[in-house]
């Protein structure tokens, strides 16, 4: 049993890294723009398809391919924001952006169906089968890469947010859009770029997702989105590092329950979130969401 637990913890921690990577863009967009991007699931799948095309058809290394997919997805993100999110204002903005993102997800899904059909496709690169032997257990390479990329992405986002002028604009926008506008920040531009960056880093998550999943279809985004949302909400408003901790916590809890009762393991994932939020409504690492006035 002891060894099973070791395996579960290893799988949970590494899996958490992969989820955090997929959720990084969602967290950024959520924190800065106050948008629930329900298209995140399909964006991950889109990233996976892009990596699939580059790897299987153009024979470009998965990691090298990111040099193409990340900028491409960045562009897609900026366009999505500019065309469909930017015009939405007013009191129902929360719900409107949610529906707009859903509509965008439908369109992307439809386009993917058109291009790739409804059959499963798989990346199946050698990296998906390899593993390293550490302290008596095998750790799969692809998850290690995923975890590493998650940490790198998070560090990069932190550096961007806290060490650059652009980051200062983003943080100002995050705290108070009106005030940011007053001090001369082009909030729309900052928002579009943030959405673009969020979508761009999702390409990395997509590559890893495409590699660990045995196969995916345009429909696969639906299985991802609720988990990604749960992670982001549990972490708390816009806490990118918190998303990693929240993801690791949830996937580890899930993997541990998996030893005993796999069917209910998924429920643990959501139950943990509900219980924690009932006690701590702002999430594990969130600032207080409600400010006086």
């Amino acid at each position, binding site marked *: 049993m002891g060894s099973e637990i070791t395996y579960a913890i290893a799988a949970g921690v590494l899996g958490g890294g992969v989820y955090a990577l997929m959720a990084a863009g969602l967290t950024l967009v959520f924190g800065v723009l106050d948008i629930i991007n329900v298209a995140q699931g399909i964006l991950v799948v889109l990233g996976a398809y892009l990596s699939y095309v580059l790897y299987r058809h153009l024979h470009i290394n998965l990691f090298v391919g990111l040099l193409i997919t990340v900028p491409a997805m960045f562009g897609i993100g900026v366009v999505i924001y500019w065309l469909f999110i930017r015009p939405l204002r007013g009191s129902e903005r929360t719900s409107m952006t949610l529906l707009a993102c859903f509509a965008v997800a439908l369109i992307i899904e439809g386009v993917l169906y058109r291009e790739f059909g409804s059959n499963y496709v798989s990346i199946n690169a050698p990296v998906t089968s390899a593993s390293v032997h550490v302290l008596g257990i095998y750790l799969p390479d692809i998850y290690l890469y995923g975890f590493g990329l998650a940490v790198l992405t998070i560090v990069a986002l932190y550096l961007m947010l806290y060490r650059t002028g652009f980051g200062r604009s983003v943080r100002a926008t995050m705290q108070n859009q009106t005030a940011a506008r007053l001090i001369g920040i082009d909030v729309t531009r900052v928002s579009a770029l943030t959405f673009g960056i969020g979508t761009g880093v999702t390409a990395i998550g997509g590559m890893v997702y495409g590699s660990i999943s045995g196969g995916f279809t345009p429909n696969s985004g639906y299985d991802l989105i609720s988990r990604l949302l749960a992670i982001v909400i549990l972490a708390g408003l816009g806490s990118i590092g918190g998303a990693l901790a929240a993801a690791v916590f949830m996937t580890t809890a899930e993997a541990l329950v998996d030893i005993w009762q796999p069917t209910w393991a998924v429920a643990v994932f959501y139950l943990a979130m509900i219980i924690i*939020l009932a006690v701590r409504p702002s999430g594990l690492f969130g600032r207080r969401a409600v400010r006086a006035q």
Partner: protein
Amino acid sequence: MTAQRTLRAAGLVVLLAVVAVFPLVFTNPTATLFAIDTLIFVIVASAWNMFSGFSGYLSLGHAVFYGTGAYFMAVAANDWHMNGSAAFELLPLAGLVAALIAVPVGLIALRVRRHTFVVITIAFFFIAQLAASNLSVTGGSSGLILPSPPFASATFNNPFYYLAAVLAVLTVALAWLVRRSRYGLQLRAIRDDEDRAAGLGVRTMPVKLSALVLSAFITGMAGALWVYFIGTAYPMFVFDPLFDLAVVLMAFFGGLGTIAGPVLGALVLEPAQQWLTLQTTGYESEILFGALFLVIILFLPRGVLPTAAEYLTKGRAVLARRRERPPGQSPSELAESRGGSSRS
């Protein structure tokens, strides 16, 4: 004003009459089937709106209540051997079970707001779906088959139709009563500024929770009616995440927080989507659906009815301002008036 009211009353009577004679005129079962599905969505969209539209708490987990009602119906009809009109007597009970589920859900979820609330309702949804596919009482992933109602095939749909119609009328009437009551006012005040409402003496938690429970009760009944009509209960169909998005979209299309909005949304969108699925065969439909969503969201952001009503009220307000004595100020004010910014 009275002419308008008479007109409105006349319209209502005509509408009710149309609802009443519909199956007699359109005897084809496909027509009544469309009508039943549509009425079920009228019920659910109105019930959803009664909570989410009024209070501003966007629930994406109403399928929990729909599914709870449906599974209660499936289990009870089988275990208690109730069929035909006797099975219809189970509907209020199904609603009650759904309402009971809504109490703990609400007590937990209503402690948080906005996005967090949305995601918590999604989480509840997945737990419910998982429970349905794992528990033995729900038949697990194999689902349950309900006894087939002993109605003649030519008029098979009619009992379902009339029941759905009655429920729909009652739900809309209830929504109307709630909206014009002080209780409804408090719900809408919560939507605009919950803390301020609390600061003005509104007991926010009981108000929100009771609205959720009421909404769940109706949604549960609708789910029970639907599952009896369909005849089978599978976890993935009964707890369908896109059901929630469908309902939200209907309410939005017609106008969130209004009475007629969700009704209009259901009346237009449910038949349109069913009919369209019949006509299209490819994925182009998905792209078109998404594009049309966006068109609605971008160009009718407040829904069909409020957009129209907004112009009316604005016109009236302008008139009123001109007519009435200005409250001791010149027409030009220092600060501009900007509507609709709700802070949190």
